[in-house]
């Protein structure tokens, strides 16, 4: 990857605290757009599993979304509860601060969480609720952190919400606690949400290399471990530019070096592990990482051989959030799958540059959403498979296109060396399923039907 000049970097980073030129792309009215800033903020913080997450607003934002994220917990499950103040019309007129206070008190009293995150919504932001004051008062009185997350839906896109959640962590959480003296300090993983348990694979790998995870921000996290994130030695931003601002700010505040990396694909995984060891400035650890990555890559390449044979030359269209667009390309390339179309709807300019670094000139960029646009690319580019999220999955089914879910609802973990093997298997499975043949053959009584062969 080419080093970027600092000023250029600042102006392009979606995650910078004060974007100078181009912030996250603005949504366009009249399209089937993705999630809002509230959604973005919530998904960033929800994986803090032992905290309570209270939505201050009408029922919708919680009622339409609770317990629908595929972020897994190894223990506590409080974050999976749908808490809402459920404002009604009279609250809109007379204000909901009293209700919010009572809700916080009830949750603190009954569930004893280590912290409560309170999310603003369009409505509470518009009617001018002083959420910060209510949270502060409650925190002082109850003796637990009550953290306002000011990210109403209308401020912008999901990416922006991720960033605002990062700001809340910086302002209220990071630096407020200290680890036990014997804690082995290592790396913070920023922007990894343990979807389908991927975090556990990553952690296993890091542990084999002798690298400790200090704080998970936020996949399968506990509130307390984030309070001491400022004691980590390295920050890794796991392919989520939206939280880059958090890493940058931690660098300037606490002097923690950071890098951006990914665990999709063997090369990226090796690069990430090496980068951790390098930034820790520990020669012995670097040697350990080298041994581990060499061994794992060799083993993987052995195990991948049959799949590579089957997948070589297959063509894929990738349509996912900006964060995964470039990292998944690397993984696919290693399997011999050619990415012939890629969505850039939610990508920043820098994401697009990284995509360009990884794909050939023959790849089509899909700048805006909409099922028909994606399908058109699949058809025109003669793609064999579509890799996207849940909202596009059923469109692919209608068009009889083999499909892999890469977003929040997936149930398979694709990170790390083992993850790449799983991805290879899943691709093979998806392409080979007999249903595509059946779907492609019209009913036998319709003319010119190719024979359907099981």
């Amino acid at each position: 990857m080419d080093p970027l000049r600092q000023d250029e970097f600042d102006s392009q980073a979606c995650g910078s605290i004060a974007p100078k030129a181009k912030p996250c792309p603005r949504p366009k009215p009249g399209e089937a757009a993705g999630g809002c800033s509230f959604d973005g903020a919530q998904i960033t913080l929800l994986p803090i599993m032992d905290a309570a997450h209270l939505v201050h607003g009408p029922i919708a934002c919680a009622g339409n979304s609770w317990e629908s994220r595929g972020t897994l917990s190894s223990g506590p499950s409080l974050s999976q509860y749908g808490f809402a103040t459920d404002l009604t019309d009279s609250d809109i007129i007379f204000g909901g601060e009293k209700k919010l206070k009572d809700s916080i008190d009830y949750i603190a009293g009954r569930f004893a969480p280590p912290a409560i995150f309170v999310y603003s919504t369009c409505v509470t932001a518009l009617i001018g609720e002083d959420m910060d004051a209510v949270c502060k008062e409650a925190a002082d009185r109850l003796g637990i952190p009550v953290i306002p997350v000011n990210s109403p839906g209308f401020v912008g896109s999901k990416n922006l919400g991720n960033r605002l959640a990062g700001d809340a962590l910086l302002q209220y959480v990071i630096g407020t606690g200290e680890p036990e003296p014997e804690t082995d300090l290592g790396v913070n993983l920023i922007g990894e949400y343990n979807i389908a348990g991927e975090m556990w694979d990553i952690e296993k790998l890091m542990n084999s290399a002798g690298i400790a995870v200090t704080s998970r921000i936020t996949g399968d996290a506990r509130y307390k471990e984030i309070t001491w994130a400022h004691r980590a030695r390295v920050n890794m931003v796991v392919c989520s530019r939206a939280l880059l601002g958090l890493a940058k700010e931690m660098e300037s505040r606490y002097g923690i070096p950071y890098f951006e990396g990914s665990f999709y694909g063997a090369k990226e995984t090796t690069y990430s592990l090496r980068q951790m060891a390098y930034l820790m400035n520990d020669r012995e650890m670097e040697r350990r990482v080298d041994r581990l990555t060499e061994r794992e890559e060799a083993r993987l390449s052995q195990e991948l051989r049959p799949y590579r044979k089957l997948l070589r030359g297959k063509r894929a269209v990738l349509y996912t959030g900006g964060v995964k667009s470039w990292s998944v390309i690397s993984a696919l390339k290693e399997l011999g799958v050619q990415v012939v179309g890629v969505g850039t709807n939610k990508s920043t300019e820098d994401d697009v540059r990284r995509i360009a670094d990884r794909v050939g000139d023959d790849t089509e960029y899909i700048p805006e959403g909409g099922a028909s646009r994606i399908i058109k690319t699949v058809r025109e580019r003669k793609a064999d498979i579509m890799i996207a999220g849940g909202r596009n999955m059923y469109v692919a089914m209608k068009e009889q296109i083999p499909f892999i879910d890469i977003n929040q609802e997936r149930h398979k973990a694709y990170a790390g060396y083992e993850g790449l093997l799983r991805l290879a298997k899943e691709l093979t499975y998806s392409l080979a399923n007999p249903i595509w043949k059946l779907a492609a053959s019209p009913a036998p009584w319709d003319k010119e039907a190719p024979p359907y062969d099981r």
Partner: protein
Amino acid sequence: MSRDELNIKDNTSLFKEERYVQQRENKKQFEAPCSEQETAEALAYSKSAEYMEKNFSRQNVVINPHKACQPLGSVMAALGFEKTLPFVHGSQGCNAYFRSHLSRHFKEPTPSVSTSMTEDAAVFGGMNNLIDGLENSVALYKPEMVAICTTCMAEVIGDDLNSFIGNARIKGVISEEYPVAYCNTPSFVGSHITGYDAMIKGILSYLYTRSGIESKPGSGEESGEKLNVMLGFEPYTGNFAELRKILGAFDTKYTILGDHSGNYDSPATGEYEYYYGGTKLADVPQAANALATLSLQKYTLKKTQEYISGTWNQKLAALSTPLGIKGTDTLLATISELTGLPVPAMLTEERGRVVDALMDSHPYLHGKRVALVGDPDLLIGLIGFCLETGMEPVHIICSNGDVDFNEVKFKDEAEALLAASPYGTEATVHVGKDLWHMRSLLLNDKVDLAIGSSHLKFAAKDAEVPLVRVGFPIFDRHHMHRYPIIGYQGTLNLLSLIVNTILQQLDDHNSGFNFELVR
């Protein structure tokens, strides 16, 4: 390649492997957790009667809600009309939630767009977003009608849809004739059923008014007399099919007002279209001249029903979801009365077969204690079904049950229905409560079976009660919505679902002498 090699473990099996289990154990050192004893005590307390009392005195926080918001219902309603694009006026996340929510339930795409309002819209109003949005979406998705609903945000800042749409026409973004229906659906009032009602009324009244037709109720139209039918916020595409079967057997002409079954049950032809089926736009003004209107969700469709009996001056029969034998009998009698046609023999025969099935299964149903969660009209149907099979409804929660029709409150009707049967004496109907309340109920006063949406699975699991998934949303089972639950056939489906869940429980929990072959 052998199948063993291809075995890909998903998160249910992969992370049960020893190495991951060990890793999770190691992680506990970071958690500074309570001792196992403390955790067990807290859990036990949360299951106690003492806690239940505190839980029920909870006022200001909802825990695990069982309702969605108005515009979600509006999106479903808009998809019930031919080539109509649902258009959500608000910030973009709302629309993303609706699309995910509906798609997860139906396993089908949901075409719907947003005006993606941002901070400038919050300050200056959302008119520019609405006008730009109309221009973009009409160009991109080529609908024949756009159906706009509002969200909280648009309502709080007081956006005036009517004048905005007017301005869009003046600006030439859409032509004067281009149909744009709309309704106001703030999420801080009502629930998804209120929004469904608002949009159906919005579309019916809009298309009728602009047609210039003067209704002559009961006069029928040139092609013969028709019956209007409305199913309401209907999570089952199978119910549309069942109703068509029934109306077909009567040999009556009919118009379904709001038919989203096409959109949510389209064939895989290899080519995705945005719009499938739906009520023809031209049929809507004609519906004002129909014989009568039959509504199958009277609480849901309150305003629409008032509009039809008022403005169209039309005879209206309003029922709740017709489940069970009695519920279906009422449906058939009503159709017969409205159309003047006799109940066809085919349906009488079907009735006999389903009664036979109910008799076959009755020993396993009698006295089973049941908990129910759902929307008001569905619950009226389910309560009726339970009572006629000898199952005893015990806990009934209706989060959005603060509704009435013809001055009868849902709660009063439900309680009267229960009081009229010896099997309903133990039941309590809770309106406005959530699934955390239901958890307390399930833990403190045990039942044999819970019936409700997928959201109920957490409470049901805590209480170790089997859950039969009925209603909306059902995210974690496939194709349930394709099978009808109304009519005699639907009754049979519901019966199979329930009795086989009970039989499965018997097998799961018994071994040895009572692991029987014949049941």
